Structures are given as C-alpha cells and as structure tokens.
C-alpha cells in the first residue's frame, strides 16, 4: 500500500510539459525536486531524508487524502498533499441538473454539516430569486444548523481522540452524536444526508416531538461537555500533544484563505453569523470564541466553546418557534434563476461554504462553483506541519477537521 505508491512516483517523469509557454509540472517532478534537496542535505549533514506516502488509505487521513511526506527520521520536513481521490466532478454534474436537484449534492460535499450545505445552496437560490421567507422557516433552519454544528464538532472531538490514540472519546462522541442523528431522522428522514432545507423552505415541517427532543438533548448534553473536557481536554497527555503544535499566525491564516474555527483560533474573530447575519442569528446572543496562539490547542478550545455557544443559541430559539408555513415556494415548480452571477456564503462547522452561480436564465445553472472550506483549510497544513513529528502531523490534520469529499468535490 505504501511501497507500491512510492515506486510509481519516483519514475523518471515524463508528464511534465509546456503549455502556453508555462512549464506544467507533475507530481513526480515535485517529489523529485524535494529529493535532490535531500541529497544535498545528505552530503552536508550525513542524515538522509526519505519520502513516505501517507494515504490514500490511511486511518488518520479521514478518507482518501494522500500526503507525501519528506521526512528526516521522525521529523516531517515537507508535506505535499495530493488530492483528487474522491474528485467526483460535482461541478460538471451541477451544470446538467436543475436548481432544486442541486441541493442534495451539497449533502455529499461536507456530509458532516449537510444541513448547512443545504441551507447555503437554498439561500443562494433564494437570494438570486429574491424570495422572502417567513420566520418559522428561518428559525427552524437556524436550530437545525446549530444542531448540525454540534454533531459535527462532536464527531471531530471523537476523531481527534482517536487520532491521538485514545479510542474511548471517539465512542463517547459518537454516542452523544447519535442523539442528534435520532432527532434528525425523526424530522428529516435521514441521518447523514437529509436534503432537508429546500429552496423556499423546508422539505417537511418539524416533527411534533422535535422541540421536546431537542430540549431533552440539550439538558443531556450540557453536563457532558464538561465531562469531555475532564476526560480529554484536561488530560496532561492531550495538552502536551496539542499545545504549541501546528501554529498558524493570523496573517498567514488570512492569506491562506483559512476560515472557520481555524481562523478564529488564530485570533481573527471572523464569523459570518456575526458579521453578515443570516437566518435568525441577528436575534440571538452568542459569542465568537477566538484563540490567541493559533495552535492545535486553541483550535480544540474554540470548537469546544462553539459547542457551548451553539447550545445557547438553540436554547434561545427552541422555546418560541414561530408559527407559519414550512414552504413558501410551490414544490413542483421548476426554478429559474435570473441571468447573472451570484456568490453567497455561509458559515458551516468548518468555515465558509460559498456557492457561486453563473446563470443564463435557464432551468439549469450555466456554471456552479462550490467554495468549500476544507479546500482552503487543508493547505494551511503545508505551513503548520513542517518541522513537526509524524504524531504532530496527525494532530494537526485532525485539528483542521478535514472532510475529504469536501476538498475534492
């Protein structure tokens, strides 16, 4: 799995070529370039650097990300991410299907915040068509989006534990996540990919037990966050593993286009829910947690705090969900977005999910581009991981909280 990958990569490259006067490189060339460096180094310092492949099948790459590592003993000198192992051509596919059908593709981008993806797509279409929504729709959307954020962070917490070598947090995180998926299943009919938020409203009205179940979940989950902290965050090994690891300063974070909890951990209080409120966020009170150093520990803290803030948002909204219709558009109607270009974005659990639509006025988009948070976030790893250990790399990868299909689209 590892050695065979390597063999193909070190072959003399023949895939590099020139196009329009520009040299187009290839993966082989990129790796070989690193290797000459390491030979020079070997002459100088007598240690020899070597390359290893991490992925595409590797337990800690959260799917099929491949990282080519230039290593010096245990130390990672250089990370070359290789993408595309789940590139499904979603943007091409989007040009062939109607606007209403687009929504369920967003489920399959960042599947851990599927509802927020649905929302981003629906609101992009609604904004382009200037559809007004009622308060009920907006409130329910906000509540389910925050529930999604919690479940996404729960999963992240568990997976971080697993990546650091503790299996138990993973199962505790999942145990509590199941409570949210049960609520989702009851209302939306799906556990992971729900296709719930539709242009013009919601696919179903909330289940009669929804409010009661959400309240039950909140009272169940509140003390558990503290338990999470005690079991995992307070643990000296975890702190040693995360503190001062993978530091990303605010300036490079912005330049790298990093968004979401990672940007906030670097000390930039950038949260679209606050800056450009959508849904009913403007009516709610919540804080935007920010970090100071920008290391993995800050990212851990920011996400833990975000879970608490999400709970407080839900608490503020759950008691008075306004009455009204759950759908304001006629469902069967085909959607035609007026001609023009539109870009709208939304804060998902991992950062800004932007949707760019170029419409020629027909039933299908002329061009659809998904600005996915993970694509930009991933590249921060080239800055964060260099100089660390393999163990650090795993912690950093986990603290970025990548979802590979979201990167590859």
């Amino acid at each position, binding site marked *: 799995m590892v*050695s065979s990958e390597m063999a193909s990569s070190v072959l003399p490259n023949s895939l590099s070529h020139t196009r329009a006067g520009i040299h187009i490189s290839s993966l082989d060339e990129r790796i070989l370039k690193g290797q000459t460096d390491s030979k020079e180094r070997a002459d100088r310092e007598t240690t020899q650097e070597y390359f290893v492949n991490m992925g595409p099948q590797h337990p800690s790459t959260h799917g099929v990300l491949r990282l080519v590592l230039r290593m010096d003993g245990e130390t990672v000198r250089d990370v070359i991410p290789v993408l595309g192992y789940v590139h499904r051509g979603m943007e091409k596919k989007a040009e062939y299907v109607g606007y209403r059908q687009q929504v369920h593709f967003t489920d399959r981008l960042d599947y851990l915040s599927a509802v927020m993806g649905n929302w981003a797509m629906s609101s992009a279409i609604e904004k382009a068509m200037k559809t007004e929504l009622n308060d009920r729709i907006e409130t329910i959307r906000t509540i389910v989006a925050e529930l999604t954020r919690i479940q996404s962070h729960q999963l992240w917490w568990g997976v971080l534990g697993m990546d650091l070598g503790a299996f138990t947090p993973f199962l505790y995180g999942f145990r509590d996540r199941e409570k949210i998926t049960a609520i989702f299943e009851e209302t939306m009919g799906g556990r992971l990919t729900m296709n719930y938020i539709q242009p013009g409203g919601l696919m179903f009205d909330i289940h009669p037990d929804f409010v009661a179940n959400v309240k039950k979940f909140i009272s169940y989950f509140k003390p558990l966050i503290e338990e999470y902290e005690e079991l995992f965050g307070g643990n000296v090994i975890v702190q040693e593993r995360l503190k001062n690891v993978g530091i990303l300063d605010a300036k490079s974070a912005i330049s790298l286009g990093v968004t979401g909890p990672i940007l906030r951990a670097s000390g930039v209080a950038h949260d679209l829910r606050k800056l450009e409120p959508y849904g009913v966020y403007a009516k709610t009170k919540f804080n935007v947690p920010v970090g100071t150093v920008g290391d993995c520990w800050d990212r851990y803290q920011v996400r833990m705090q975000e879970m608490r803030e999400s709970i407080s948002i839900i608490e503020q909204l759950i008691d008075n969900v306004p009455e009204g219709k759950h759908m304001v558009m006629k469902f069967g109607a085909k959607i035609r977005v007026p001609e023009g270009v539109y870009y709208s974005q939304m804060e998902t659990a991992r950062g800004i999910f932007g949707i760019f639509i170029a419409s020629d006025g027909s039933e299908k988009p002329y061009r659809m581009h998904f600005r996915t948070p993970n694509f930009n976030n991933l590249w921060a790893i080239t800055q964060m991981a260099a100089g660390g250990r393999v163990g650090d790399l795993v912690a950093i990868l986990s603290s970025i909280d990548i979802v590979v299909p979201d990167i590859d689209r």
Partner: protein
Amino acid sequence: MFNSLPNLQVSWEVISVSQRVSTTYGESPILAVVYALAAIVAIILFMSLTAMTLVYTERKVAAHFQCRLGPMRVGWHGILQSIADTLKLLLKEDIVPDQADKAMHLFAPVLCVLAALLALIAIPFSPYLAVSDMNIGVLFISAVSGLGVLGILLGGWSSNNKWSLLGAMRAGAQIISYELSATLSILVVVMFSGSMKFSEIVQSQDQGWWIWRAPVVGLVAFLIFLVASTAEINRTPFDLAEGESELTAGFHTEYSGMRFAFFFLAEYLNLFIVSSMGATLFLGGWMPLHIGNLTFFNQVMDLIPPGLWFALKVSGFIFLSMWFRWTFPRLRVDQLMKLEWKVLLPIGFINLLLAAILTLSGFYFFPGNS
C-alpha cells in the same frame, strides 16, 4: 494441587517443574522425559489459552468502558470469539512481500513468541507451580524480555516497508529506554529482599508486600514499574510502535495470517508476564494478604489457595493496564523519551538511593524476618 492448606508457621517450600523432572530422572529417565513433554504441552496450552482469554477480556472490558457490549454473537456473550479469531487467523493466507527478507520475515514473530515463552519459565505461579525457580530469575527475565524487541526490530526491518521500519525503530528506542527504569524499580525490590530468586522475593513478603512495606519507596518503585512496563509491552499510552493513526499498523503492517497471530500472541503474553512480574515483585506473588496482628483476618486469607491469590493479583494488574489503554491517548515520540530520561530515570535513581538507605537502616513497616 492446592489441597494442603499451608499455615502461617510453615515457611513456603517451592518445588518447580524442572526440579521435579530432575528428581524423577534419577528414578526413571523415561518417566522424566514424559513428564517434561507433558509439561511443555501444558505450557503451550496454557500460553494460548491465556492469550485467548486475555483478548476476549480486553474486548469485553473495553466495550464496557465505552458503553457498549462487545462480542455477543459467537457463543454465550461472545465467549467463543477468540477461538473463531484464532482459527481464522491460522487459516488465512500467509503473505510474504516480494521485496521482504524472507527468512527474517519468518523468524521475527517466532522470536517474539519465544522471548515471551522464555520469560514465562521463571515466574512462580504458586509454590507448586513454577517451571524453573532459578536463583537469577530477575536477571533472567530482564535479559529475555530484551529478546522480544529484537523480534519487533527484525519484523519491521525485514518487511521492507517504511512504516514498518519506523514503527520498529520506535519500538527499539522505546523498549531499550524503558528497560532502564523497569530494571531500576525491580532493583529496589531485589535490594529489600536480598535475592534475585523469585521464590525468595515472594517469601520475603510474607509479612507485607513491598509496595507498602517499604515506606513510599516501594510505592514509587511500583508506579515507575507500572509506567515502564506498560511502555515495554507497547500498550497505550505508549503504543507508538503500532500507533494506528500514525503508522498504519506499525511494525506488523506487512504481516498477515499466522505470523500476525504470533505477534498478537506475544503481545498478550507479554502483558501477562509483566503483570505477573508486577504481582510477584510488589504485591507479594502468591502470598496471601496479611495485615499485622489481625490473626483471624490472616487465617481467613490463608484459606484462599496461593494460586488463586496470584491469579487475582495478576488480573488486577492486567485490568489496570486495560484501564489505561482505554482511557489515555498516546504520547508523541519525543515526549515518550522525555518522560523516560527526564522524569522516570532521575526519580528511579533517587528512589534506588533511598531504598539503599532504607535497607541499610532496616527501617521497614512490619519488620519481618528478612
């Protein structure tokens, strides 16, 4: 085996299997050979049964730590799970990578199991059940347990896989480092009991176990031993050699089928050995729990056969190890070294020094006849 109830006044007499064989040899050589063969078969059976039980226990205990049930569907509460796993592993295709060093690849897992088997020799399970009660038992185990790491190194190197090699190197560095601390903490006990013979070490604890009999020093030595031994057998939080999330499967990445099963076996045997050592050195081995002058209590404790005492202590130790494994995350490789060289080793040395002072001054709790 446990028929005759020993009482307090009689000192424990240890008869090992090797002694029995040699005594029988004088009477009838054939019988001695048969006896020895039976012993070997018994040991192999015992070994595989122990490992299988341990695997099953670990899976069940881990499951309940994690609010789930664990194996349930193979036999009553999944009790036959380990048997199914073993059978499957034995019948699985045995892959040797093309580029691997075939002889070494074959030899490595055998070496691992061999080391564990050899270590098993010296441990006294009860006064009547020990393979060989040698007078340098402690030294023997320290030496033999070093052999296991050779197997891991060989396995990692011969697989011709970078992750394997990385895992093996980690294991090598880790085990050699932690050997120091483990030995230092063992030395404390050796110093107190004045012997390297396991049976004598156990007998020296008839008035109280070394973990509390030597004030503080014993406890510190025990804790150091706990940490160092967990590291020596590559269990979380020190499972760097096979850390899944970092090194895919570490040194045994390229192993499949029976050879992988051997590594698995060695891992759990090592857990058993380390726990037995901990129980023997610090918790009094097969010695019952005695508290000072509470004669009635002590007599009640004597009713429990020594073999059971030993098993209880070992299972306690093993449970502790499992508890650690299912609670803690893993350390990073440099932190691992830091913990050993900057924390455990200095404390170990100071502890040894204190132990020397204590031994010279003869200041023990429950001063006994040692």
